[in-house]
């Protein structure tokens, strides 16, 4: 039984959350069955819907990996949102100036710039935690707001183009990710391949390398790890930087694969979704891919639900309940064991 808890707890949490959300939908006088049917149809009902879901899933895998890697290393990176913004913003600044470069050069340079920016932004919080003990939850939230306002300034003044919604110019065609599939207006870029590769790299890094072992050891029991000769302060900064690089990459694939220019709405809460995804996926790269798919489907489906008069905020409520139950996983364990005990008695 113990082996399967990693799967059972998130699965039961999601089901319980969907049931509670059904009551919330009922409370505003709508039919939850109809609402969920619209949601499923919106996410998987046609080939365009499926492509849309995959496009939405792509950055979520990366923010999920970012937060999940942080959890494994013992840091709570609640700042994936800001790191994603900084990654996309820096990649934009680089990408719009690469018209002269051949694609392989432009692509790799833009990706690396974005990842470095995300890593650097997160490393500030890591460094502060290592040096002064400032809790990363407070510092990364502050960095989120600073990134939000900084990007808002950047697309209004130095990088501004056109009128209307503040936006940057388009990045060079050579810096756009190749399109794998096109259904109607929906384009699926190579971003999904990047995301899956990132998940594999994280798996190998955590399970097969010394660095991964040190990161996990430091996250599991910092005092024992320090005693065993692992530098905690170095590890905290490095873990935050790797986590931030993944979040930065999320911003990069969203920029190079979907919008091709920086917009204020580019991050749109995807960094925060990473927290739910990491927890549902139990911080395991493969689990995170599936959790991201679930969240991507919820996001795509909820857009359709919005047309049926049900606010898409319901997704946030579902996410919140899932995280709550995963945080206090003993509630779910007790629920399951209690049922079992009752069965045994009967």
């Amino acid at each position, binding site marked *: 039984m113990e082996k399967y808890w990693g799967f059972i707890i998130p699965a039961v949490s999601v089901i319980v959350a969907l049931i509670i959300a059904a009551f919330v939908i009922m409370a505003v006088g709508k039919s939850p069955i109809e609402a969920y049917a619209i949601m499923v149809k919106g996410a998987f009902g046609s080939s365009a819907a499926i492509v849309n879901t995959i496009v939405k899933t792509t950055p979520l895998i990366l923010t999920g990996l970012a937060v999940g890697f942080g959890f494994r290393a013992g840091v709570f990176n609640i700042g994936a949102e800001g790191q994603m913004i900084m990654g996309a913003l820096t990649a934009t600044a680089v990408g719009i100036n690469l018209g002269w470069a051949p694609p392989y050069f432009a692509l790799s340079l833009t990706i690396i710039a974005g990842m470095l920016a995300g890593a650097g932004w997160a490393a500030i919080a890591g460094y502060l935690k290592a040096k002064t003990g400032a809790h990363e939850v407070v510092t990364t939230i502050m960095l989120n707001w600073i990134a939000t306002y900084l990007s808002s300034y950047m697309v209004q003044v130095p990088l501004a183009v056109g009128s209307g919604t503040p936006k940057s110019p388009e990045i060079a065609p050579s810096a756009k990710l190749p399109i794998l599939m096109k259904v109607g207006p929906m384009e699926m870029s190579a971003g999904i391949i990047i995301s899956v590769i990132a998940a594999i790299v994280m798996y190998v890094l955590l399970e097969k390398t010394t660095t991964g072992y040190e990161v996990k050891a430091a996250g599991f029991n910092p005092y024992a790890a320090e005693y065993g000769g692992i530098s905690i302060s170095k590890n905290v900064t490095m873990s935050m930087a790797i986590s931030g690089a993944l979040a930065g990459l999320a911003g990069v694939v969203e920029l190079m694969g979907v919008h091709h220019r920086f917009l204020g709405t580019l991050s749109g809460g995807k960094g925060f979704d990473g927290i739910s995804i990491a927890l549902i996926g139990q911080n395991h790269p493969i689990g995170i891919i599936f959790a991201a798919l679930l969240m991507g489907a919820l996001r795509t489906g909820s857009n359709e639900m919005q047309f049926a008069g049900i606010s898409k905020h319901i997704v*946030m409520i579902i996410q919140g309940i899932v*995280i*709550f139950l995963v945080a206090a996983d003993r509630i779910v364990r007790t629920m399951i064991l209690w049922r079992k005990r009752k069965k045994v008695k009967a």
Partner: protein
Amino acid sequence: MRVIEAILDVFRNPQFYSITLTASTPLIYASLGGVFSEVTGVVNIALEGIMLMGAFVSTAFAYYTGNPWIGILMAMVVGVGIAWLHAWASIKWWGDQIVSGTAIILIAQGITGFLMKPVFGQVGQTDLEKFKMIKHITKDINPIIRPIKLPFPENSFLGQAFGTISPLVILAFVSVFIGWFIIYKTTLGLRMRSVGENPEAADTLGVNVYRIRYFGVLMSGVFASIGGAFLSVGDTGIFKELMTGGRGFIALAAMILGNWNPIGAMFASLLFGASEAFANQLQSSKLIEVSSSVKPLFNMVPFIVTLIVIGGFIGKTRPPAADGIPYKKSE
């Protein structure tokens, strides 16, 4: 040089001091709530979510009943309810307190967004006139708690800065003093601190660790929700989606900087409130011309100040020893 002159001018303007008070008040309440919770050993990052619910609930009741004080009262009730959820997960079920707090923030953001249309008839932000039209209400509604006049000479500096003031601002300082008195001068406070420092020892001495921790967390719900309600019915009279805008986390920073002491947290809140007021006043200064596209840079100021202060000073403050660690009573 003009910039320096503009900065000095901000400090000479009484309005800066009155805005500082308005900007600090939500932080004072929320950080006091944070102190109550963490002194007993429960980390409560849900403050942001509780504040948001407080702002929402108080606006809703102020609009429907026409009495903002009923709004405040109901905000407190709901605030205690959400805080109980956090207490239940972290005390009874030994849940991860930071993750549970994050969950509650998400639930609060989700519920307030979800209920905008059913409750106020519009999304984004509330508009009292439209609300009255939609709900066919004809009577006058005053959604803002009436400020009171203090006996300062009207044209004096003090009169302009603090002459008209919301009773909630005064109540904030009173609450801080009462909070400090409870935590440091009463038996209950001694128990709270002992449970936060060494729950095993407190338990051995017959203190009910769980009950004291529940008390601490529920009190944080009371104060954080008033702090949130101040943003709506205490100040602007409207509710905006996500209107707390990170203030719950700035309040946490104030609590840390204030070394988990209500009075320290109050001074830290005033510092962060002053930085918000400063940015606000400087960008509207007549001595320098600030185009609207540069305004985001000014909005960054409170967050940068918080980051620097928290990164630079935190090593010198110390959290309660058992802060964030669930207490597992041995059977």
